[in-house]
Structure formats: C-alpha cells, structure tokens
C-alpha cells in the first residue's frame, strides 16, 4: 500500500487537512449566501413589480362604455425609488393594448424573466375583470423592470460573502496551523527532553505526556530500561571478571616470590621476575578495571554528600604515604586549614585523587618530593606537582583515553586507566583534569579542578 504522506510532517498534514476543510466550508458558505441573497433580491423585485402592477390595475375603471386608466404616479416612481432600472409597462384590455409598450410580451407564468429591448427584464402580470357597460372585460397589467439593481445587490452581497468566506478561510487556516502546532507541542517537548539528556542518562522519561503518547513513552522507557540493564550487566561482568582474576593472581604472585627465593640460576631468576612483573601488570589492570567499573556505576547515580575536600585530600595523601616511603619520596601537602566544602561522592573523589597521586609517585625518581596544594578562586584546583620525568610532549587528551599510556613510562607497571578514571570522576562532578608541566622546570603537574 502506498502512503503518500507517510514521510511528510504531521504538522503539514494536519495543516493541509484543516485548511482544506476550511476551504470547503468557506466555499459552501459563499455559495449558500449567494443563492439565498439572489433569491431574496428576486423576491423583493417581484413584490415591488406586483405592487406596481396592482396599483395600475386598481386605477382602471369603466367609463362611457370603455375602460379608462388614470396611471398613478407612484406606480412607476416606486420602481425608480430603489434602483435605476428601466421600466416597461403595458395595459391590455380585452385583447387590445390600452396604453404602454405595445410589444411588451405577457410573462408566462405571471412572474417571468425574459429579454426585452436588448436587456433581461423581470416581468409581472396582474389580471383583472372589469365590468364595462354591463359586460365583463379582462384586463391584464404587465410591469417589467430590468435587473440592473438586482444584479448590483446580488453582486455586492456576493462580494461581501466572498470577502467573509476568504476571511474565514484565512482565519481558520491560521487557527489550524496554531492547533497543529499546539497538538504537536508535547511531541516536540518529549523529543527535546530526550535530546537534552547526557550520553549515560538512561532514566525513564517522567514528563507528563498526553494519553495518545503514553504508548510511545512507555515503549521508550521500556527500551531504555533494557539498555540500562544490559549495560550494567556488562559492567557487572567486567567487575566480576576482574575480581575473580585478582585473587588467583595474588596467589600466583606469592608462589612466584617464594619460588624466586629458592632459585639459584640467574636465568631462572630472570624468568620468574618477568613472570612476577606480568602478574603485577595483570593484577594492576584487573584492579583498575574494577575501579573503572565502579566509577562508571557510581557516576550514573551520583551521590550528593556534603564533604570537605581538604580532609579528603589529606586522607588520600596519608593513605599513599607508605607507598611513597618505599621510594623515599616525601609528600608535602600544603593544605588549607579552613574547610573546603563540596557536594559529591567521596568514594569517587578519593579514587580520582588516589590515581593522580599514584601517578606522581610512580613516575618520580627515588628521593624526590611531591607537593600537593590547594588553589583557585572560582573553582577548586588541587595540584599535584612532582619532580619526575614529566609528560614530555605527550598529548594530554589522548593520555586520558582508556588504556592509553605515555611513551615515557619505561618499566613502570600500569594499565592506562588512571587518568581515565580521574577524568570520569571530575566530569561527573562538573570539573576536569588539567595536565601541565611543573612550574619548577622538571616534573609534571596534574590538577583536579572542581567547581566551587
């Protein structure tokens, strides 16, 4: 089946159909008014003609064996009073024309329209029986008038009707357009609200919608629920897998360490060390994957806890101080004593801070310093500056991508997810990660920027 309108816009379709209806109604209105007005005008003319003919007939009287007519002035003047039409009359008595236009034909039936002297005329005949000299004679009075005034009246009514019809059509079309617009407004609203959503926003649509759209909205919500379920399923799967891999890996690593101590041959030792390193990479990856999955899950329904960023940062610093201690690295934190209030998810923020600080420790040489400081006026800027190898000329935005690591990593173990996690957390809180060179010349400076 061919559906010509299947592709075109509903609004246009509605508007076209409504204006078509309006056009039909306007046309009907015009035709009806014209017909009625024409009939009314004809009736009016007939009435006046009949009145005129009757008044002439009334003025007929018998005298001295003949019929005499005293033509009343008003008989013809009344015809001239409403229009400037030509007037003809004829009085026939006993078959003879008594007076008037002898060639004016009697109308058949008594009211008729015919052409006379080159113009259509409306003619009326009134018949009388007059007794003249004891004898009844038949008299016929014919009065005819051209239809100029009639035409003027009906054309003026017609043009008024046409103007009203066109006005009605335009008005109805405008209203139709408005109606189409307003009928489609909820649809547009729904489209806008779905479009405005972030890429991960899979909450059901709750906006009030007209009943006709409920099935669509329900289907949409259903679809989103399924999508969400399948997404979280795959995230769950990753987390589950990472978790399940980590425990056996820890066992493998412990066993490998034990084996390493027992081995004598340098070649063997080397091989086992490589094995341990691979296990480390693997375990790190599993841990970061787990973290990433956790971050992805938590950012979706972000907690809005009131917390203190200063406290949080110092917590993370002290948490990592032992790790730094292994490389004789000192973490110098220069944190404000006043509270730094913020609303967000503390676990996510900790994870972001931990990843950044972890990088600073990882990519710094032994016996160096890392400084953690607070700054920024319009936004919180928590800066981690180290004295390590720095980013070189690596592209900051590509380092934030998943599994991407710099060329400067050397033998440092890593999965390439740390900055991705930190960035995801910062974005979820409306902030960002900024990667810079350390101001003191060597080393890197990474900033977590959060809105105040």
């Amino acid at each position, binding site marked *: 089946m061919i559906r010509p309108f299947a592709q075109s816009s509903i609004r246009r379709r509605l508007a076209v159909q409504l204006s078509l209806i309006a056009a039909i109604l306007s046309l009907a209105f015009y035709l009806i008014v014209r017909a009625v007005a024409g009939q009314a005008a004809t009736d009016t003319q007939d009435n006046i003609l009949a009145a005129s003919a009757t008044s002439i007939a009334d003025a007929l009287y018998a005298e001295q064996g003949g019929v*005499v*007519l*005293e033509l009343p002035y008003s008989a013809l003047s009344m015809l*001239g*009073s409403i229009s*400037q039409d*030509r007037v003809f009359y004829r009085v026939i008595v006993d078959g003879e024309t008594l*007076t008037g236009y002898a060639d004016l034909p009697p109308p058949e039936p008594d009211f008729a329209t015919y052409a006379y*002297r080159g113009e259509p005329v409306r003619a009326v005949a009134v018949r009388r029986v007059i007794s003249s000299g004891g004898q009844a004679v038949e008299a016929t009075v014919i009065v005819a008038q051209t239809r*100029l005034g009639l035409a003027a009246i009906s054309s003026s009514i017609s043009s008024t009707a046409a103007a009203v019809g066109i006005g009605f059509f335009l008005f109805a079309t405008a209203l139709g357009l408005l109606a189409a617009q307003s009928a489609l407004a909820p649809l547009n609203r729904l489209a806008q609200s779905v479009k405005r959503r972030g890429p991960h926003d899979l909450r059901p649509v709750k906006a009030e919608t007209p009943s006709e759209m409920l099935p669509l909205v329900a289907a949409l919500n259903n679809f989103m629920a399924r999508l969400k379920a399948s997404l979280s399923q795959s995230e769950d799967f990753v987390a589950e897998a990472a978790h399940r891999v980590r425990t056996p890996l820890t066992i493998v690593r412990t066993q490998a360490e034990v084996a390493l101590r027992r081995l004598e041959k340098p070649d063997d030792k080397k091989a086992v060390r490589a094995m341990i390193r691979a296990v480390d990479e693997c375990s790190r990856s599993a841990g970061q994957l787990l973290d990433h999955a956790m971050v992805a899950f938590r950012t979706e329904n972000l907690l809005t806890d009131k917390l203190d960023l200063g406290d949080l940062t110092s917590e993370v610093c002290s948490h990592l101080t032992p790790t730094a201690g292994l490389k004789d690295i000192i973490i110098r934190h220069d944190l404000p004593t006043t509270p730094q209030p913020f609303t967000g998810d503390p676990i996510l923020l900790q994870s972001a801070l931990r990843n950044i600080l972890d990088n600073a420790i990882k990519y710094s040489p032994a016996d160096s310093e890392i400084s953690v400081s607070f700054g920024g006026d319009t936004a919180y800027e928590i800066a981690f500056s180290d004295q390590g190898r720095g980013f070189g000329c690596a592209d900051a935005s590509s380092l934030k991508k998943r599994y991407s690591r710099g060329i400067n990593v050397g033998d440092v173990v890593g999965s390439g997810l740390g900055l991705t996690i930190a960035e995801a957390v910062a974005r979820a809180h409306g902030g960002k990660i900024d990667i810079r060179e350390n101001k003191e010349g060597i080393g890197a400076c990474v900033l977590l920027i959060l809105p105040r």
Partner: protein
Amino acid sequence: MRFAYIAAIILALAPNAHAYEIEGRHSYPTASGEVTLHIISTADINVFEPIILAFQQENPSIGIEYISASSTELMKAISEEGAVFDLAISSAMDLQTKLANDGFAQPYSSAATSSLPQWAVWRSLIFAFTQEPAVLVVSEAAFSGLPVPNTREDLISLLRIHPALFSARIGTYDVRISGAGYLFATQDSRNSDSYWRLTEVMGRLNAQLYGGSGDMIRDVASGQLAMAYNVVGSYAASRLQEFPGIRIVQFEDYTNVMLRTALIPTTATHAAESGVMIDFLATLTQRPALTALTSLPPISPRALGENNANRPIRLGPGLLVFLDRLKKKNFLEN
C-alpha cells in the same frame, strides 16, 4: 479667439430630408476638422455658444454641429426617425428619461460623471448639467403697492382679491406645446393641491398661454403681462439686465427645479467625443467665468440648498407616467 467659427443659420431646410423640424443649425468647425460632434439641443444657440467656444478651446480638434429643435422634435428625431446625433441635450426631463428607458441612449461613465450628485444622473445614461428653478416673473410696475406673493396660496388669494387687475395679464406655458411647461405643470400637480385651484383661478382670469419663455418675459417687461408663472429661471435671470422692470420670485412652498440633461444616443458615431463633452458639462461648476456668460446655473448641491423649497425633479420612471398616452390626454383635458 484662436479658432474662427462660422455660424450659419439655415432656417428652411429641404422638407423631405427628415420629418422632424429643426429651429437652427450652427457649425463650429476646427482647423484640423477630424471629428465633428453632432449635437441636437433644445437650448437656444445664444445660451449654448459660450459653452461650445470654451469647449473647443480645451479640445481644439473637435468640431461641433449644433442643431436646435424643440424637445418633442428632438424626441421624434431620435426615437422615431433614428437620426444620427452624438449628443442630445434637452430640458424635457421626461422625454430624456423616456429615450433612455426605451433604449435609445448608451451608457457612459467617468470620474466627472461620478462626481455629480446622485439625483443628477440616471443609470449612467442621462447626465444633468444645469439646475433651473421654475420661477414667477412679475412686473414691478403692475405690483406697485401690492405685496409680491411668496407662496402659491398667497398668489391664489391675491388673484381672488384683485381679479380686475390680473384679468388677461397672467402668462404661463401652453402645456400642449411646451415640454418644459408640461413638465412643470405635471410636477406641480403632483406636489400640491393648490395647483389645481391656481389653474382654475388663472383660467377664470383668462390667462395667456405661451409657447416659450422669451415672449412671456418680454410681455411682462412691456407691462402687457403682470406676471408669468412657471418660467424657467435661467432665462428670466439672463433677461434681467435687458428688462430692468421685471422681478424674479422663487416660491417658498416649493420650487420645481428642472435639470437640463444630456445623453448619448445609440446612433452616435463619436461616442468618445460625446463623453468628453459630457465631462465638460458635468464640471461646469468649476468654470464660474463661463457660467456667468451663459446664465446656465451649473449643478451645485450647495446652491440648491440655499432655498429649502427647491426640489430637483427626480429623473427616473416616475416621469414616464405623465408621458403615458392616456395620462397625457387626461391631464390636458383637465
């Protein structure tokens, strides 16, 4: 005068050329001589010549052939004999209406004609260009010591009080001959009952009947008549200078105002030029210098409004009533 004109009066024409009688023929040819407008008119050439000259000054390419005839002859020429004329000008409104009603006139409209008041146009066929009240002309000598009547009732009582003074000294139109006289009389009969009493009184006083206003005015001036009833005002006004002893009275009960009208006959060969002439006539109000020359009062609702009693005779089928064969017969019998 840029254009020379020749006025030739041919009083006697070959009788078998046409059956209608004319009173005069005047030619106003032009240098280029392309178009000659044939006008048949009831107006005296003296009255109309200034208009023709002024018209030709504005339209130097249009020559004019002016034929004067009585209103009944004009009617006969056009309706019965199919004479070829480009313009028919007549003061007999009833006859002009009948010509138009019976289909002997062709329609014309322009900005000038649509600026005319409604009562001055009928069906785009008849165009009035003058408004001429019917007046009473009195001899000042005859009325010395007597009040001049302002209404028909006053006139009737004056005649009844002084029958000797007015016996055979009242002039009026012979309605059998004069179209204007018949028109005024029929309108009078329609407007008031006093008219029949007036005719009765005048009949008893042996009123003199005239075919034209010129003679009547002359006789009033000479003192032969004490008064002339229903004289076309414009004629009387034009003779005031000539005859200082006469006085014009406009009645205050009502005054019939005759409209001099023009129509383009269907036989016209230069209908476009006729239209130019009609436009010229319709805008006479805007040419005070010219109207002063002709003594024809142009159509002016304002001038008409100066006398509340003024009633322009209405163009239209009502006028046909008095042309009805039977009606006319009855009226004249009365």
